[in-house]
């Protein structure tokens, strides 16, 4: 199958799967609502008022959208970062960006931002600021006169991540125990329905990050030959690295800002997709975007139904999946995971 045809087939199949999972998600939840009502509401024929409308259109649908977007963003960031560093263990949180964004949010919550609509945007702004600070720090630490050496980038990311994690721990240990619950809950990673306006901004940011990474997918393939190998074939490796870094950082920062820190998606989904569709990034990146949406959406649906009416943090579920998957990965494909 030729390239474009293959891409279309893979995307079609995964989009269908995402659709199915989304519909399934819409049908389940702690409030029992019949499928007939749900269909009516979604197609615009349903009651204009009432609890069911609020639950389906105001709670479940935005949450499903947030999950699909966040999952896709994290998976693409992970795939990009794995290609950039030629390291199978790379995942978005290694960039240090998510720790920085998390620190921003923790600061905001502790300083007790007042109530109101401003609050939600305020938290997002703090998270973004944190992400920018962390990402810039990593970039500045790692870039030398000539370029962005990959091993320094990894180290810088780890260091910056550790720094901000420690900062978070310090803040937590000093804060009033009453506020503690909220902060820790946020740090575990939870999906919540995002208002339409914020969802739009989130979507646009994710689209931009996606474009930054996907736009250079062909060159990313060549990076498998090593930076020098790719350069011999005509790739400007330094510019490519910078662009991929920016894209991955943007995607990660957006997710942490709008949704919260969620681990493992950026690690598991690219590997799983690679096993299914191969290493050609022109197919892998879109597959990761859709597959990530499927994965996180499924995890979140589990998280909010398994112990209803209470809710698990989705980060808990992804970690539970992550650890065994990782072991399987190491054992079955040791050495053959990545170029």
């Amino acid at each position, binding site marked *: 199958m030729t390239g474009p045809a293959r891409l279309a087939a893979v995307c079609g199949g995964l989009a269908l799967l995402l659709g199915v999972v989304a519909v399934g998600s819409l049908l389940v*939840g*702690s*409030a029992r609502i019949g499928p007939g009502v749900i269909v009516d509401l979604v197609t615009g024929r349903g009651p204009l008022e009432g*609890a*069911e409308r*609020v*639950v389906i259109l*105001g*709670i*479940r649908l935005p949450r499903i959208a947030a999950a699909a977007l966040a999952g896709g963003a994290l998976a693409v960031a992970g795939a990009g970062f794995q290609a950039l560093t030629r390291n199978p263990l790379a995942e978005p949180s290694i960039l240090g960006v998510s720790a920085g964004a998390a620190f921003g949010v923790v600061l905001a*919550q502790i300083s*007790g*931002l007042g*109530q109101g*609509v401003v*609050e*939600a945007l305020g*938290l997002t702004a703090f998270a973004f600021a944190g992400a920018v600070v962390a990402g810039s720090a990593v970039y500045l630490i790692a870039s030398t006169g000539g370029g962005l050496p990959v091993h320094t980038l990894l180290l810088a990311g780890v260091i910056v991540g550790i720094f901000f994690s420690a900062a978070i721990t310090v803040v937590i*240990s*000093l804060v*009033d*125990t*009453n*506020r503690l*619950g*909220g902060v820790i*809950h*946020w740090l575990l990673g*939870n999906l*919540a*329905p995002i*208002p339409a306006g914020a969802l739009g901004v989130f979507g646009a940011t994710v689209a931009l990050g996606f474009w930054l990474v996907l736009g250079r997918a062909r060159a990313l393939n060549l990076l498998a030959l090593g930076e020098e190998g790719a350069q011999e074939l005509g790739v400007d490796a330094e510019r490519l690295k910078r662009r991929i870094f920016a894209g991955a950082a943007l995607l990660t920062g957006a997710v942490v800002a709008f949704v919260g820190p969620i681990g493992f998606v950026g690690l598991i989904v690219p590997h799983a997709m690679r096993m299914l569709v191969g290493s050609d990034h022109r197919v892998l990146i879109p597959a990761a975007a859709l597959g990530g949406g499927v994965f996180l959406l499924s995890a979140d649906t589990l998280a*909010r139904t398994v112990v*209803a*009416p*209470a*809710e698990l*943090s989705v980060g808990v579920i992804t970690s539970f999946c992550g650890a065994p998957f990782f072991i399987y990965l190491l054992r079955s494909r040791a050495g053959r995971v990545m170029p």
Partner: protein
Amino acid sequence: MTTSLRALALCFLLVAGSAWGLEVVDQTGRTLTLPAPPRRIVSLVPSVTEILFAIGAQETLAGVTDFCDFPADAKRKPSVGGMISPSLEILVTLKPDLVVATRSGNRAETFDQLKRLGLPIYLVDPSSVGDVMRLVGGLGELTGHRDGASAVTADLERRIKMVGERIAGRPRPRVLYVLWPDPLIVPGRGALVSELITLAGGESVTADLGAGYPRMSLEAAVGRAPEVIVLASHGGGTPVGRDKWERLESLPAVKSKRLYTADGNVMHRYGPRLIDGIETLARLIHPEAFGPEAFGK
């Protein structure tokens, strides 16, 4: 005196307001406009649940949390889940016309979500006995159970006064209250327990520390040489850490064997049972002032 004046003012407001809808000021000073007195309240705060039952307003309670375990009937009300992440879906399907929540215990994001869903939120943030009295009064106004509320506050005032009389003129021993043993968490400035200790005739050695319930090092606690140590238990198997303290034989409290355990649930909740907390503490701190018949009603 002031309570009834305030009640009068609120009544006036209520009468004036009912023509166009109800204007209510919650416990943090925010003003809410409700179309009518609330008939279906979801309480995200266990102490508020307790108060609503105590003032006789339990039929207005449409939903509670998993942690609302007192009185026993509260457990029969539909639950929306935990305090940190209540299920928004269930909350919405309960069709409440008011949600009562607190800034210390519920999350700001939850308030945000509720606001977006068009649900009015009545915020409470009590940190003193006086706040609890006002909260009882406020909830009484809100639900139209003013008489029930007055009865509760009057009873609380009476019993606090009784304790005061019993311990009047006695020297105040230094009391260390251990909310949580490891890390060591103690009541500081403005914490309810600090006030309870004072009302019970003791002097909290941690009353000058940070706001709320801060952490403290064991060394610092020992350095303040408490004469009475009260370890809070939180129900069913949570660590009290008694032996850790018994090993500190040089402490006055340990030497005179004044190391006690008390039920945290009555001490930490901003509800009508705080008087049980005061009475328990008073009996532990000043056993000589209270005979076995002391707390008969």
